[in-house]
């Protein structure tokens, strides 16, 4: 048993190649964050920096970019968006999944339509509206357009449909109102769906550049990707080492959060049947 079957070797090689291709940009990012300016622009392409320049690059990034503000904005915006999305979507999905009312069919169609319309289609009217309300450059304009997530409604809907009706019947017999059922029965049992949705929502909005670029023009409200863009445009110029260090800093919170909650996330995703 010291020969490994050829099929397995091929499979392993293919998978490794795929993983390498996906990881390459990140590896390169880390490597660049540790190089000096001259090291980056040499013609030879090496992964290991000739001189470890991590500390200097990170110091530069922290000095030139208001990192704390950016990260704080990212946390506030993502947190608020996620909070409102869940608060709106859970009761909505519950009603559509478990209550019988005449507009249910129509609402289902609207949700489907909503899934098809991207933010880019409504960006201009939204921008004009926020401008008229003098709400550009505010958390409101960053958060408000995303508070109703049809994707969240759709995902929770699927999850709630699978919840046994008898559980809700028992709750009604025990004297709970419909809102009571949502708060006391649905929410405590919906965390797998909520954690799975949290990944999609937080990753999407943490990394979003398009919408902040439209409604924010001041550093004070810039989200991490927008802040990086200012940094590149205004200060860094071609200082890629510092830029990569800054990129690394804004990517790390997501990676750390995922690693910390990995078990729950994976559980949530497998339990909601969402893979891909």
């Amino acid at each position: 048993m010291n020969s490994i079957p050829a099929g397995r070797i091929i499979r392993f090689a293919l998978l490794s190649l795929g993983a390498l291709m996906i990881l390459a940009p990140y590896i390169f990012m880390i490597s660049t964050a540790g190089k000096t300016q001259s090291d980056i622009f040499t013609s030879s392409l090496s992964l290991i920096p000739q001189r470890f320049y991590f500390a200097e690059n990170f110091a530069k990034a922290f000095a030139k970019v208001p990192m704390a503000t950016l990260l704080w904005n990212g946390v506030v915006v993502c947190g608020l968006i996620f909070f409102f999305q869940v608060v709106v979507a859970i009761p909505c999905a519950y009603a559509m999944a478990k209550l019988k009312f005449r507009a249910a069919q129509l609402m289902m169609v609207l949700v489907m339509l909503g899934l098809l319309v991207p933010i880019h289609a409504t960006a201009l009217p939204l921008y004009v509206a926020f401008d008229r309300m003098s709400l550009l450059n505010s958390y409101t304009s960053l958060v408000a357009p995303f508070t109703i997530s049809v994707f969240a409604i759709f995902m929770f809907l699927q999850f709630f449909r699978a919840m046994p009706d008898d559980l809700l019947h028992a709750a009604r017999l025990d004297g709970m109102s419909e809102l009571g059922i949502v708060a006391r029965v649905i929410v405590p049992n919906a965390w797998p769906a909520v954690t799975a949705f949290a990944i999609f929502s937080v990753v999407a909005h943490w990394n979003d550049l398009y919408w902040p670029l439209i409604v924010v023009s001041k550093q004070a409200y810039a989200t991490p990707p927008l802040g990086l863009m200012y940094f590149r445009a205004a200060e860094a110029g071609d200082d890629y080492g510092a830029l990569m260090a800054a990129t690394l800093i804004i990517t790390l919170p997501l990676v750390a959060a995922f690693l910390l909650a990995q078990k729950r996330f994976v559980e949530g995703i497998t339990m909601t049947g969402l893979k891909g």
Partner: protein
Amino acid sequence: MSALSLRGLKKSFGGNAILNGVSLDVEAGEFIALVGPSGCGKSTLLRILAGLDHADSGEIFVSGRDMSPVAAADRNIAMVFQSYALYPHLTAGQNIAVPLAMKRLSRSQRLPLVGSLLPGQKEIRTGIAHDVREMAGLLKIDHLLDRKPGQMSGGQRQRVALARAMVRHPSIFLMDEPLSNLDANLRVHARGEIVELHRRAGVPTLYVTHDQAEALSMADRVAVMIGGNLLQLAAPDVIYNDPAHIEVARFVGQPRINIIPALAENGRVGFEGIRPALLEKVANGPVSLGIRPEFVKLSPSGRSGLAGRIERLEFLGSEVIAHCRLDASGDSVVAKLAPQEARDLIAGMKVGVVLAPEQAMVFGPEGKRLRIAAGARQEPAYV
């Protein structure tokens, strides 16, 4: 006044009639088993009684009070669900406490954090905890109170579900196949316990099951529902010995009753040698003859009875089930024999099948029971 009366309940789902006018009275302190095959609308009926669903027409009275404007929570009807429906995120103790908390604590007192600061709630919570422990003691689940449903066995969950339903002292008790998820031994044990609990509490109970043996053994009266119709409501022995409808006769009894096609002619039923006289006027034509397997005897010599063959023998310990086929008509007949009667029998052999004519029941073409003249029952069967 009945504890619970239903008057002509009808319900259909998208054009499919599920309940066709069900009327039923449950008297104070009574235990009624509602039995019927899977999918006949038993759970639907219970849901309507509990106020979780609405009937298309018909009325429900609890102690004479019309329930139609009353919400599910205010009917004071408790229900044990087929799946138990325990809250998965709460411990057994918390599960049992929910109905009490919803009833005794005010809306603001139930709030997390804020609620625990309000005056008066502490005494109420102590009272709830006390009642929960008392109920747990009654059902012998004290040691389970800190476990979540996922950490309990089926039988333990069933008890917790029972405790949650009983703890608020309902005026009516509905149970939807509470034992169907238990293994056979535990089921027989739990039957006895439920009957015992009912005797002690005296709450009128409507107990749904698809197991006819469970219904016959537990209930004061049995209601047989088939295809959305309540065919008979009577004491267990009447249901078994004197079924009002062919479907009732078929559904109750294990092995199933023998149904043999026969002909009605001039007020008499004719099948081979059996010719009972009918008391009711029936048009000439096909009818059905029902004979329970215990009233069929086999004669190994073939000297008496109808000629037939044994196709299969099932040995069940205290009894032997013989599946026979009659030579003349080709009908299959099942006999339930004591082991000593079956000693000489082997599969494939020719036998005489003796049907006890005085035990025959006659059912009309629509399945309604037709009475036969008492005198005719004694008439010698085989000529």
